[in-house]
């Protein structure tokens, strides 16, 4: 059984040279595999780390996952700064460079289409948060009356009111997110949505109502960034990340990627 595999980071238009000094996952050297006008960026990884059983364990290890994700991202970023690039999903391992070459041959048309779509464009991330404490309308509490005589009924009533107001706050927040998304999509050439992040992961108590990705012409990046700044306010926080390599806009090739909207 083979002891190593070819870890694939990205496929780019053939630009001749490998961007210098790229170190990949597990401290491996990155090299280019070129075929038919396309270049695949790969490194040789030990299956003791990237074989199925090993990977099952390693993906449970946050330190390993983070180091691997950041190394993958570093390589993708380095390539994307040099040429139109289709990032490949984290942990895609072929048995060798021959299989990677075959991939470039078999899927060259699809890669060509995807690379044309992302050429000269960058991905931006926009996350929208709503603080329910700021946005909640203050409904009058049930003072005295039923509360004094029938605490159980008063509790249920308060709870119903609270749930109702949270629900309407949530609905208003979602509407606001839709407006923001529409404004951003007008500047972008394409938009996708990622799942909203769990508060445990975002480290924030407020509600994430939008986790969007937008593919924007490089020449309109500043305009896009400036626009996000104007959309915050009134209990709504808008966070911009990027520019990113077009991770969220290569779904056409994979067939099953991020949620897609029309």
């Amino acid at each position, binding site marked *: 059984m083979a002891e190593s595999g070819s870890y694939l980071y990205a496929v780019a238009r053939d630009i001749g040279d490998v961007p210098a000094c790229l170190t990949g996952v597990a401290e491996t050297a990155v090299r280019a595999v070129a075929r038919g006008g396309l270049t695949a960026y790969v490194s040789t990884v030990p299956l003791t780390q990237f074989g199925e059983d090993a990977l099952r364990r390693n993906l449970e290890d946050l330190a390993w996952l983070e180091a691997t994700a950041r190394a993958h991202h570093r390589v993708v970023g380095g390539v994307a700064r040099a040429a139109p690039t289709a990032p490949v*999903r*984290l942990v*895609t391992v072929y048995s060798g460079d021959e299989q990677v070459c075959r991939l470039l041959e078999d899927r060259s048309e699809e890669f060509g289409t995807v690379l044309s779509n992302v050429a000269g464009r960058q991905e931006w991330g926009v996350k929208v948060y709503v603080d329910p404490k700021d946005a909640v309308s203050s409904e009058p509490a049930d003072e005295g009356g039923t509360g004094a005589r029938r605490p159980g009924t008063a509790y249920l009533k308060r709870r119903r009111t609270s749930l109702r107001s949270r*629900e309407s706050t*949530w609905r208003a927040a979602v509407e606001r997110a839709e407006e923001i998304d529409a404004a951003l999509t007008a500047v972008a050439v394409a938009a996708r949505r990622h799942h*909203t992040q769990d508060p445990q992961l975002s480290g924030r108590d407020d509600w994430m109502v939008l986790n969007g990705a937008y593919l924007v012409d490089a020449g309109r990046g500043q305009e896009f960034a400036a626009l996000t700044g104007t959309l*915050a306010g009134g209990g709504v926080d808008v966070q911009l990340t990027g*520019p990113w390599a077009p991770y969220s806009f290569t779904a056409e090739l994979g067939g099953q*990627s991020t949620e897609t909207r029309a």
Partner: protein
Amino acid sequence: MTAEHTLGGALAAEGRIPAERVALVDLLDRLLSGGVALSGDLVLSIADIDLVHISLRLLITSVGELDVLERYGDE
């Protein structure tokens, strides 16, 4: 406006944000659900791993609107 926004805006001019400053959760959004998902001829891809058993599955699990409502409603 937040520090992250300001950072993003400032670095937009330079064309990039240093990899170290990218939040892991934002990165994993893209690396685990974005990027070209390939099949065939592979030794392995992340799709082959049963993510249900990964303790970090929260990273790629949808938090539905109802879940959020319930969670906050129960506080």
